[in-house]
């Protein structure tokens, strides 16, 4: 609790800096407009104008928050295409785009995590798999995999797979490696003493796995799940970048950048940030509950 005040101070400092930067970056445009109109502008005019431009270089925080409010609550409840009027989410609201991104992220995350855990089980139990696969799994972490996301989307679209699945594949791929590497470490976490004890109990391989290896890998699982879900979200957003994607936070970013709608970009960015923070937080809450029940409070 004693870190609340410092965090608030830092956040406040960021907001103040942001306002300062807004005035600084947008002032040029205001002066140009005034010079063209032949009007003399004072400091207070610049201040008022820079904080309320429609296409600012950097929108002020309150503009972004207003846009977020406008494109979520107002759009859905009062908008012509909102959920209240039509019964389905409006395609102009960030809730709709966020949902598209979230569903692809979760699908990919589930697949990637499942595959990572399965492969980790194989690697722990088979020396050949370990020695042939692990060096590549580790080396592949140094490769900028994200860069091929657009290609995956386009290639899959050309053989007729569109929509959720291609994005989910990218998300799965990105969350797969952190989970794999973390779980291999987790399954190997029991020390020789514990393994020897189970041997004296004449435990089978499966028994050792269920009763010792799996429980002791849980802390590692949650650590890698947090990395994996963040990576899955980034993967989905980048997967939405190629032209043609019409829904999702990534598409929102791209269309904002095409049309110079900076406020829209920042609102989408803030929505993505909230989504990422929320997902990581949910994993954290589950982690605390599970570890608490297992008597391993982190």
């Amino acid at each position, binding site marked *: 609790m*004693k*870190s609340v005040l*410092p*965090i*608030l*101070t*830092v*956040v406040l400092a*960021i907001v103040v800096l942001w306002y300062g930067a807004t005035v600084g*970056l947008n002032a040029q445009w205001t002066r140009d407009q005034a010079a063209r109109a032949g009007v003399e502008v004072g400091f207070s005019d610049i201040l008022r104008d820079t904080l309320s431009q429609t296409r600012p*270089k*950097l929108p002020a925080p309150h503009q972004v928050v207003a846009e977020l409010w406008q494109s979520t609550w107002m759009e859905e409840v009062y908008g012509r295409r909102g959920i209240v009027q039509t019964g389905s989410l409006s395609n102009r609201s960030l809730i709709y785009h966020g949902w598209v991104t979230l569903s692809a992220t979760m699908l990919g995350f589930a697949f990637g995590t499942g595959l990572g855990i399965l492969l980790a089980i194989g690697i722990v139990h*088979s*020396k*050949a798999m*370990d*020695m*042939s*696969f*692990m*060096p*590549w799994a580790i*080396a592949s*972490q*140094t*490769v*900028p995999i*994200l*860069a*091929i996301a*657009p*290609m995956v989307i*386009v*290639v899959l679209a*050309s*053989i007729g797979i569109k929509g959720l699945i291609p994005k989910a594949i990218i998300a799965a791929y990105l969350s797969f490696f952190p989970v794999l590497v973390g779980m291999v470490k987790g399954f190997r976490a029991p020390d020789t003493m514990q393994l020897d004890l189970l041997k004296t109990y004449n435990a089978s391989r499966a028994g050792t796995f269920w009763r010792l290896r799996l429980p002791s890998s849980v802390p590692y699982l949650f650590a890698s799940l*947090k990395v994996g879900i*963040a990576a899955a*979200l*980034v993967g989905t*957003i*980048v997967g939405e*970048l*190629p032209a043609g994607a019409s829904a999702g*936070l990534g598409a929102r*970013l*791209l269309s*904002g*950048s095409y049309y*110079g709608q*900076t406020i829209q*970009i*920042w609102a*989408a*960015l803030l929505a*993505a*940030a909230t989504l*990422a*923070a929320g997902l*990581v937080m949910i994993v954290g809450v589950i982690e605390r509950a599970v570890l608490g029940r297992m008597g391993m409070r982190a």
Partner: protein
Amino acid sequence: MIWAWGALAFWALATAGNVWLAQNHARNRAVRLVIPALFGATLLLLWEGMVRGLGVSPVILPPPSMIGARIAQSLPILWTDFNQTILKGALSGYFIGCAAAVAVAVVIDRSPFLQRGLLPVGNFVAALPIVGIAPILVMWFGFDWQSKAAVVVVMVFFPVLVNMVAGLKATDALQRDQMATWSASYWQGLLKLRLPAAMPFLFNGLKIATTLALIGAIVAEFFGSPTRGMGFRISTAVGQLDLPLVWAEIAVAALAGSAFYGLVAVIERGVTFWHPSQRGRA
């Protein structure tokens, strides 16, 4: 069909060979290199065989041989893109971002208040989809490599900062007391004790940042770039369905990523030779 069956047969043989090697010669150092190499070769051959044997169109998945030929054929293009994206965009951003993060870490290390405030925020930001700021920075800094470097700066800053702050705390009270009995000044304590002790943590962050730097530089080019650069080439070549060129760029990116990471790892081994994780590997 011969290609497909041949590849499958090779796969079976290589797997059997790997299993035998792993069971009987696992302690041999050469075997430890042979097994992953054989596995990699199997994957390539399986890819080649399946694509040829099943007649997959090169528009969907070109075979490795075609990609190799394309790399050899378009070396000048690949070099221009490499120069633009990696050398100009990623590397300059990497150096600026890491240097800024280390400097900020040393500054906030003196104030527990700032640490308690900045670290949670830094951890929070490190989990965010930061690549999303690419369109904004491209608007601010123009289409050329400066905007890519700016994206890279923001992307590498927080992981390095968080690791460096943790590293500066890595000395124990005994060691700091020792410096105090020698009446070492703050700067002497920093230079002779705490910076060296922070190096393993710093390099951990630097290694994470290598991949992030490449990703940032390439993805930022999707939002606008001059008519060169790896991200630009990937997105335009995909549009022209020139998949071999796309894969060639990906191969270059993979090589560059591994080489960059390897370089940082080699420097780490030189700098932190005293650390337990580096001992006995000389």
